[in-house]
């Protein structure tokens, strides 16, 4: 495998940049949705249902004559919002448990890690499904429940990092100075564990978006008329052979976004992991 090193360097992170571009592209769409959308996403037009893509309706219309393009654009907001908040919740819980567990060790550590082990045994989708049904499917519940069932990975990650960092000199030095544990955790350890967490979070967003779409498939995701990619795609499912535009566009949106977050996350991992990037 003799390869030109120079080309390799240019090439090396191309997928990560692609991912980054995708992620930014969709964040911009979410922010500027009102300016990009050509129609009101919830405006019903019964005179024009299931119209094919055209100049006025770029992505066609759905079963109630709503503009699919505008719905996908606004759906970006909901889907990304769901992804971010769900991951935010899981990261906060994960950071807290991970830091405490790794830093203090002992019984606390054992208890937390046992809890993590137990939670990891459950098919997360089963738990999500049960809780969402017993509560009520809504944007808030979907986000919270996804968040509450996906913090275990972050916890393990943070704990492992914390364990290795707490033996380093600067932590020992801080301890000797009688700096409070909380301060050490926040000032010295947190900044050092945040990078891998960031990678995990990036991948987590992708997972959350997919989970929402799977819930939507079962009718338990974000409820219409609020457009989310998941529920637009699900509405298009029954027309998959007939009105292809109803499923293809939201499907592509999910697919490209999830791909983007994954490429970004994986690229970052390569970039930030000293062992791997050394090669």
């Amino acid at each position, binding site marked *: 495998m003799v390869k030109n090193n120079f080309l390799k360097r240019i090439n090396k992170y191309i997928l990560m940049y692609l991912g980054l571009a995708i992620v930014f592209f969709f964040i911009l769409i979410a922010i500027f949705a009102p300016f990009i959308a050509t129609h009101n996403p*919830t*405006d*019903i037009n*019964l005179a024009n*249902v*299931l119209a094919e893509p055209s100049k006025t309706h770029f992505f066609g219309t759905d*079963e*109630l*004559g709503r503009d699919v393009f505008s719905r996908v654009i606004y759906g970006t907001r909901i889907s990304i919002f769901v992804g971010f908040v769900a991951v935010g919740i899981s990261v906060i819980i994960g950071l807290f448990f991970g830091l405490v567990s790794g830093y203090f060790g002992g019984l606390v550590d054992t208890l937390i890690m046992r809890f993590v082990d137990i939670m990891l045994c459950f098919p997360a989708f089963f738990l999500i499904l049960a809780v969402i*049904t017993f509560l*009520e*499917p809504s944007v808030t519940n979907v986000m919270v429940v996804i968040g509450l069932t996906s913090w275990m990975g972050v916890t393990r990650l943070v704990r492992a990092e914390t364990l290795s960092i707490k033996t380093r000199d600067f932590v020992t030095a801080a301890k000797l100075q009688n700096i409070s544990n909380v301060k050490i955790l926040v000032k010295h350890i947190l900044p050092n564990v945040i990078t891998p967490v960031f990678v995990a979070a990036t991948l987590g967003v992708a997972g959350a978006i997919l989970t929402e779409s799977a819930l939507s498939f*079962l*009718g*338990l995701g974000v*409820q*219409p*008329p609020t457009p989310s990619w998941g529920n637009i795609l699900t*509405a298009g*499912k*029954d*027309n*998959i*052979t*007939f*009105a292809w535009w109803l499923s293809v566009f939201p499907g592509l949106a999910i697919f490209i976004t999830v791909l983007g977050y994954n490429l970004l996350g994986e690229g970052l991992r390569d970039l930030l992991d000293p062992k791997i990037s050394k090669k």
Partner: protein
Amino acid sequence: MTPKNYFILILIIATITVIGCTDKNGESENANKNVTENKSIPKQTSNSNTDDSQQDKPFGDIIFEGSIGDASNLIPILSTDSVSHQIASHIYNGLLKYDKNLKLTGDLAKSWELSNDKKSITFHLKKGVKWHDGKIFNADDVKFTYETIIDDSTPTAYDSDFRIIDNITIIDDYTIRVNYQKPFAPALNSWTMSILPKHLLENVKITESSLQRNPIGTGSYEFVKWNPGESITLKANKSYFDGRPNIAKYVLKIIPDSTTMFMELLKGNLDFMSLTPLQYSKQTNTPKFKDNFEKYTYLSNSYSYIGYNLRNELFKDKRVRQALTYATPKEKIIESVLFGEGHVATGPYKPDSFWYNPDVKRYEYNLEKAKELLTEAGWEDSDNNGYLDKNGREFSFTLMTNQGNSNRAKIAEIVQENWKKLGIKVKIRIMEWATLINEYIDKRNFDALVMGWSIPLEPDLYDVWHSSKCSGKNLNFICYENDELDKIIEKARLTFDQDKRRKLYYKAQEILAEDQPYTFLYVPNALVALHKRFKGVEPAPAGLMYNFEDWYVPENLRKYSLTQ
């Protein structure tokens, strides 16, 4: 169906729509189906003489039907879902049944008579009827079935019509008399209930009986096997008292996703399934489909409505309710939600039924009229914020429906948009079924609902519309109270004469149309596809399946050959 079982019936709808939450057309799946006169029904070129002797028709082949949900319990008095009843209808018989024109006719009973005081019915049973295990059926089985239903330890939902029976006397093995405490018109209907085998159930707890999963009846088909979640197989009962059926096997295949089911139909693995309006109108017009399948459409036994909580100040004025109905584009809703496959509903009966009153007040879509009515009722936009108000209260409310039924969600979105034009702010809430029932409907804690009822063959309106049924888990949950209507309903229950009874229900429909406690939306069509090799199919007011025993496959068209 007994009148008090409306509730069970909505649950039937709910089970279908909730379990198969991909089912876009939950309302259209009901056991008994009627045919609209003005809908195009493919003419069958079969030798439609019903007197054809069975032996002329070839015996063989299998029919595969697709179903979203599985059955739950094959002792029909214990189950409330439509799939179980559908299967049970092939396996068991009642004393009576509805014929193709929805007239009551004998099934296990060859005739019956009513006493002069209308308080007792005498049934003369058919002789020589055998249970599938070879035992002879007689009057003991009928009495046993009655005793089982009213037994307090039997968890059945169908007991109330039997509890008003004073006693049952066996006159001889094939004659049985039922004495009622008072005349009760819906009583006859209750004898369409499946009769159970005494010799197999008498010494076991019914909830522990193996018949729940391996039923034995007197019906035209015998139970073969049930693979939970996969399929239920029945085979022709060759010694059926009404002549053996022609199709050798009946298989119900359970496919929870409607898109998958449709693909299985296209692939030829299913012969018979309900179509969604979308499939019916858009996806079944290819030449290949038309070569293989016949499509049928007929009015289903259900209607959709928007119900208003009449305990809520907003809806107490009937002009407000009339205005809301005027602002509901029923035709447009049928057009877009059902792709035109439905009829405007004006009351609780089907447009093609004997009880339906065609001359009630109709509310054609008219926003101007609606606005006038609201102004009359005192609703004005006095603070110019775009929404109506009255005495400082804004006209805004929440419209709820259950999740898993996309038609209802769409209806909610459409009326929300239309009522907004009147200056009414509507918030939509879509909720999981059990939560909606337990937390909102049962506690009367709602403003308005998009819901559906099944329409039973027995026309009694007592449970849904009588003012005494407004509390607790009763079905008049909108609390409609109208003395005049109460009296009509009570009188109709005592009236056996069909024409007199109809007059009463005509009046009832006029009252409901004027008062608009519901905005009646539509009666959807049942839409089905059936493989063309099946002959002898004759759509009638009773639907399609009523003469299933007479269907047959000509030998040259046979698809499956049986080794047995």
